């Protein structure tokens, strides 16, 4: 498999630029870092009024079909939007909504999509997708939670940790393993008597999560998304790699700018510290990383728009490089802000924590490179053995 063809212009149009400009302006005004800080200490972790506004702007339905209240736009639009939300650490669970939309699109029947998508687009429904399973893994083979047919419906068992916005979600979609050994995605309305929702104490206070414990939770037959199991989970993942990478590049960009600004403002030895090459060069390396990662994010989005069936390599490359670049950006931000960077008052730690979260979810650099190595070099020694 090789890198697929993408249009030389990435499919970029004026429209994309309009979205970017408006998203940037809106978030600058409505989601400054002081607001992120305030919300990080609030019980819910984000602002429901802002959520409604975001929905009215069409963001939540950006890639959902127009027939269901969405805007019917593509991945490049989404990448551009998520770069902006990542820049501002928007605490609203937009990424979770996107994953949910990917799952409905991949595996939902017409009726299921008609039922959930309008509410998702309007923001009336806070929804999430449970990526991880009992042991913390997220790939198809690691899904242990089970679904057993009973009484015309299904009984779900297992643990789904790290579910974004899990404590407030009215819907969660998650993979479960059926008796046949195959996976199926289930859309579970919450609350459900058999689902215990335990809010988690996360490292990243701008992205709340919960542990969902399915204790023989009963769901009706219509909760089972009716196509495709593991293949559909894979589609959600591939789109997820690209989407999360976009958000990460935005975060890395913000971190870079914050560090740059500090290196200009801060003086020591009667000089701006940014004039020292020991400070300047590491910042430049972050910029280079951000630009290379951004190229991958845009190309992965273009691949998803124009060659969706062969977008896996681009999406994995985007997540791999973003997972290297964002952590370096935040590490340097804390370090180069000096003693101040180490404090609660400095905003760098918010980005730092988001970077840790983002690298850990949906595969880090090593994880994706392992897959890509098989594409480039064939099976490894251990795979052969």
């Amino acid at each position, binding site marked *: 498999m090789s890198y697929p063809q993408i249009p030389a212009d990435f499919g970029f149009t004026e429209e994309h630029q309009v979205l970017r400009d408006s998203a940037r302006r809106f978030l600058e005004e409505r989601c400054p870092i002081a607001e992120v800080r305030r919300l990080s200490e609030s019980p819910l972790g984000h602002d429901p009024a802002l959520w409604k506004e975001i929905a009215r702007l069409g963001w939540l339905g950006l890639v959902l079909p127009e027939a269901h209240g969405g805007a019917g736009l593509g991945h490049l639009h989404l990448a551009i939007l998520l770069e902006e939300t990542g820049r501002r650490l928007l605490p609203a669970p937009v990424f979770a909504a996107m994953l949910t939309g990917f799952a409905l699109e991949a595996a939902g029947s017409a009726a299921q999509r008609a039922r959930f998508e309008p509410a998702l687009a309007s923001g009336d429904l806070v929804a999430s997708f449970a990526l991880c399973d009992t042991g913390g893994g997220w790939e198809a083979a690691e899904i242990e939670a089970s679904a057993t047919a009973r009484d015309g419906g299904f009984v779900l068992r297992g643990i789904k940790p790290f579910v974004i916005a899990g404590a407030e979600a009215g819907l969660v979609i998650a993979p479960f393993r059926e008796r046949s050994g195959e996976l199926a995605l289930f859309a579970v309305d919450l609350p459900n008597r058999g689902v215990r929702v335990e809010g988690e104490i996360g490292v990243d206070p701008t992205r709340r999560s919960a542990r969902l414990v399915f204790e023989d939770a009963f769901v009706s037959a219509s909760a089972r998304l009716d196509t495709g199991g593991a293949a559909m989970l894979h589609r959600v993942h591939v789109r997820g790699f690209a989407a999360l990478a976009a958000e990460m590049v935005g975060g890395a960009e913000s971190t870079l700018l914050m560090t740059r600004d500090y290196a200009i403002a801060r003086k020591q030895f009667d000089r701006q510290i940014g004039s020292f090459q020991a400070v300047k060069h590491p910042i430049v390396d972050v910029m280079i990383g951000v630009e290379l990662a951004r190229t991958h994010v845009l190309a992965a989005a273009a691949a998803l728009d124009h060659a969706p069936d062969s977008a896996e390599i681009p999406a994995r490359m985007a997540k791999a490089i973003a997972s290297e670049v964002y952590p370096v950006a935040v590490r340097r931000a804390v370090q180069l802000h000096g003693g101040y960077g180490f404090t609660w008052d400095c905003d760098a730690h918010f980005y730092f924590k988001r970077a840790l979260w983002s690298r850990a979810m949906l595969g880090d650099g090593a994880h994706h490179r392992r897959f890509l*190595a098989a594409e480039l070099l064939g099976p490894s020694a251990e795979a052969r053995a």
Partner: protein
Amino acid sequence: MSELVQEVEPNEIAEFRREVRAWMQANKPADPGFKLPQSFLEVESDRQFEFLRDWQRKVFDAGYLGLDWPAEYGGKGDPLKRQRIVSQELSRARAPFLVNVIGLQWAGPTILHYGTEAQKKRYLKSILSAEEIWCQGFSEPGAGSDLASATTRAERTAEGWRVTGHKVWTTLAHKSKWMILLARTDPRAGKYEGLSYFLFPMDATGVTVQPLVKMTGEGGFNQVIFDDALMGRDALLGQEGQGWQVAMTTLLFERGAAEGSGGGQATSSAESVHRLASLAKRARRGGGTAAEDPVLRDRAVELWIQEEALRLGSLRARIPGLNLDRPQALRLMNKLVYSEFNQRLSELACEMLGPASTLWLGDEHAVDRAEWPRAYMNSFGMTIGGGTSEIQRNILGERVLGLPKSK
């Protein structure tokens, strides 16, 4: 693995690419049976030089050089900017590089930019045809990264200028008819304002070209001593005192930060992850191959991701809307990232080869004629020449990020 070019192209471009590709296939010269240089930095013998010059001439005669240059100066004035297609296809075919690199890619575009009508008419066509080879006289023993402290002096005479001084790292000086020369015309003016830019004739009396030997043992670059060497009035390019500005324009072209090249590629052996992968499958290690080693696999893939980022970035660089935050970043970082990528790649190849990487040029058992250790060593020509990686980081920090100057 990636082909060099994977973008979806408009028909007329795709058509042109097919034509060029077919031409390369039919006309690419056969292996001459003697060692060829890997890049323009190590052209040593006459037969190497003649072979390469003939090749450039052939490409020019086929109409594939100067496509973007105006027709009145020997170019084609092609509005479609097809030159980069030719360059890509030259690389793809692994054709020999075009020997007049400094003329095609550095001097030529600078002359197009600053030259008088007479200068453009005089110099440009013979650059394309390789009839006249160019070299660059910028660096001096005491002026490397701090180029503006150059002390080579050009003094006015009744007929023009008299040059005294010393230039180093002068690639191709031994084969050149002309040199782009940065010299001090006004020692009383400021460091930057006292410099002027000349098109200097290498056959002038008072010029001594002495070969320098590189760490690979190869020649190809030189030092040039000027001892009251004379040039005419019309040798000045741009205004007197404008030399720094003109030189910076040349460096933009040299670093691939600006478009406008007459064509060609600087190396025959643009290494790629594709070639690294095929090497990895041949290189023995621990009872298997390097391609099966988990650590080496991971590092190879890091380079693959970089390579795709560079390739896709060259597309992205042409779309202003995808570069609004930092319009110049991709172009200005290109030289740094590309040269460091090449260095890492050739070094990784040596590591993959293990003990076999220790054989050198001339040993009959050397893998790929010792191309890999040679490429690794030669890669430093690119991370040092044209402004070191450290200077590139200063430029990026200051011009792109707006950080304060380092001095």
